[in-house]
């Protein structure tokens, strides 16, 4: 009897914990609300956080540190000869993106550009190409939203303009040995952030 009681209690606890229901008393009444959040709202919110973090890192860490003659940011910050330097803002962004990819499949994001320093970061899928045409044409004022299927999975894909927020962004890209474009100006759309949210099978 005691064992049965314990099992019943455990089951109730498990069901309540997972939000699947209750025992003896309903956890909530009425029809269950539609689960989840609109992917567009979620993508916009995620980008807001990314954009804020990146801008603050660029202005309040990298630029401030450089202006004060403290630590410089360097593309080769990982090199043992460059141990004291900071990652560039774009590298910081990519590292975070890779770390997120390791932790969750609920969303992903990437920094891409039609004029990338590393050619591997060109828009590749049809939706990416269409999206970058769109954000470049409207000067980065409006994001692009679309859906696509990659490797059998359906995704909601949003692309937001990545704008040059600091003179350092412009100088670094215009002068980089591998840049395909040398006429960026402050405020220009230099690339975009591709946010993907899986829509289920």
């Amino acid at each position, binding site marked *: 009897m005691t064992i049965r009681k314990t099992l019943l209690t455990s089951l109730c606890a498990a069901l309540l914990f997972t939000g699947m229901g209750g025992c003896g008393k309903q956890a909530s009444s009425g029809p269950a609300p539609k689960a989840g959040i609109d992917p567009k709202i979620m993508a916009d919110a995620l980008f807001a956080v990314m954009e804020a973090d990146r801008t603050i890192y660029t202005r309040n860490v990298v630029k401030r540190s450089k202006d004060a003659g403290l630590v410089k940011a360097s593309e080769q910050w990982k090199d043992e000869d460059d141990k004291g330097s900071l990652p560039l803002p774009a590298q910081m962004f990519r590292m975070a993106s890779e770390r997120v990819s390791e932790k969750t499949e609920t969303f992903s994001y990437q920094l891409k550009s039609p004029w990338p320093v590393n050619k591997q970061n060109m828009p590749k899928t049809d939706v990416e190409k269409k999206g970058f045409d769109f954000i470049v044409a409207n000067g980065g004022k409006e994001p692009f939203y679309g859906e696509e299927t990659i*490797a059998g999975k359906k995704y909601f894909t949003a692309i937001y303009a990545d704008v040059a927020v600091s003179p350092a962004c412009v100088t670094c890209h215009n002068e980089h040995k591998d840049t395909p474009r040398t006429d960026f100006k402050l405020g220009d759309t230099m690339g975009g952030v591709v946010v993907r949210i899986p829509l289920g099978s």
Partner: protein
Amino acid sequence: MEFIKKMQGWKLWLIWLLLSLVATYLLAMNAWQGADKTMFLPGQTTVGHYQIELKCDACHTPFMGVKQDACLECHKAELDLVNDSHPAKKFTNPGNAHLLEHMDAHQCLTCHKEHVPKQTHAMGVTVPTDYCFYCHEDIGKERPTHEGLGFDTCLDCHNFHDNRALYEDFLAKNLDQPKHAVKAELPLKTLLRSYGEMQSQSQQNVAVENQLKGQEHENWMLSVHQQKGVSCNDCHMQPMEASSVKQWTNSPDYNSCRSCHNAEVEGFLGGRHGMRLAQNLSPMTPQMARLPMKAESMHKELSCNSCHTAHRYDVQYAATDACMSCHDDAHSNNFTQTTHYKLWEKEIAGDIPAGQGVSCASCHLPRVNVGSKRNPEVRVMHNQNDYLRPNEKMARPVCMKCHGLEFTLDALVDSTLVENNYDRPPSVHLESMQWVKDRVEARESN
């Protein structure tokens, strides 16, 4: 026989099947749990794994699958150390799915297969020659110097994982260096500095040790341990199994050294000398080695004391003589004919400052700064795999302390020099340094 004749065909088959299954199960369990599992080896194991090849479950699941994390359990730290150019996390984003269409770059096993000797390269791993092409086929458009190069030539200059000494910015920064640096010197260890406080803690033991006599005592009196106040009990008193109570042991093992030299012991256990111990197997012996070893050394069991002889702990002996006491291959035997060795002799004799001689350990167990420029912490890396293959791994921590980059890379690709133990300048020249030079000049002229 009459009974068998009476049985219908399907019953006989059933009995045969059951008996076969039972026999297979018993055989498999016996071999799996027993000592000798050689019958399970599907082919010759690579040079980096044969030491532990009979510890099947180090890599395999019970039904001969491969454990998902088997490779990374031992090699992840190394990949982090070398700033892996293509970590798996680069390929997890769905936006990179197109890169995985031809090869699954998430998995080590996509490129590196075990037990297939015919596909295994001299480097000790299987490496497909065409994998760069799938993602970098357009490289000729971006780099005119690369136009028309064969898809199987990438690895002549690049590695998939470790490009610390091979990426363009680094090459550009180190152009036109002299073959021999004006200040040719390897860094010196800072280990003793970090152990400075031990003297006062163990000073009380020294008085007791001074009462001992004999060869062990004489050796200990000459050791750095004596200078630092590390006495008999510090090594010989070890915790009993499953207890914190310490008991005297006549032959302290690597766990004893670990209490002060953990990083060094971890390195040893990760390398070819200690990897059997790391898998709870008997110690590696020269008898087990595939490389030629000296007959008189075959019985030796490798532990910390094999190279760092007990009580004396002479690091000069450990740096060269210890290696030569076992290794009997051309590379090792040619060492005494080299300029490197002549410098080592001078260093031992005190004719040149410490750090200007080159021992076996200088290249294979190098002294590396694991701290920062401001607060250097130079340690001897005891995992020789980290600096062995591909041999460009040696370029920065070792060769470039004394030689220019161009000379270094030419020497490392000259395969004849490996056997001769770098007893002469390289006879080949890498064209790629000129390509970098041309790119730099073209940029500067624009």
